[in-house]
């Protein structure tokens, strides 16, 4: 597979944004203090999943 150039990555990022600059589609949210990275449609869904995993750890 051809490695993406910085320009390709920038274009990918722009493609994920609406004309207003808001990101479209799922995004990844990082919770470094919990060791979690959650990809979800919304921050609320990501927060809920992170909380569920932490609760399951006990």
């Amino acid at each position, binding site marked *: 597979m051809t490695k993406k150039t910085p320009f390709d990555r920038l274009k990918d990022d722009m493609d994920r944004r609406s004309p207003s600059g808001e990101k479209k589609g799922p995004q990844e949210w990082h919770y470094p203090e919990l*060791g979690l*990275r959650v*990809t*979800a*449609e919304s921050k609320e869904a*990501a927060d809920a*999943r992170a909380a569920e995993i932490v609760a399951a750890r006990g």
Partner: protein
Amino acid sequence: MASGVYNEFKGDVLKKVHDLVNDTVKVALLTSSAAFDADNDNWADISSNEVSGTGYSAGGATLGSKTVTVDNTNDRASFDGADTTWSTSTITARFAAVYDDTHASDRLICLFDFGSNQTSSNGDFTIAWHANGILLLT
């Protein structure tokens, strides 16, 4: 094994076939006539055993609030979604099949065996997914 992950899906993961957060993933209910066969590939392979009942639409329900989580504390990753509910339904089901409805062939992902028939009678039929998620890769 009465529940499991389909072999073709395991291969698909290695071939970058699915994007489970972006794709439409469906949850369908099956009668006790179904059985888990890891060699099945597509929804059409098992859909003949789909349930019918009040409050249930053929093809199943769309999984909401999908997430893919990388857990660097426990060294694992999971796929999860909101609990799936058929409201005001009258259903008898033994299995739940999860499949990728965006895939051209509606690729099967996994099958869950409830262990016995589960029913709703003019009420909610809810699948409460495990806290570890629908799929857990360790």
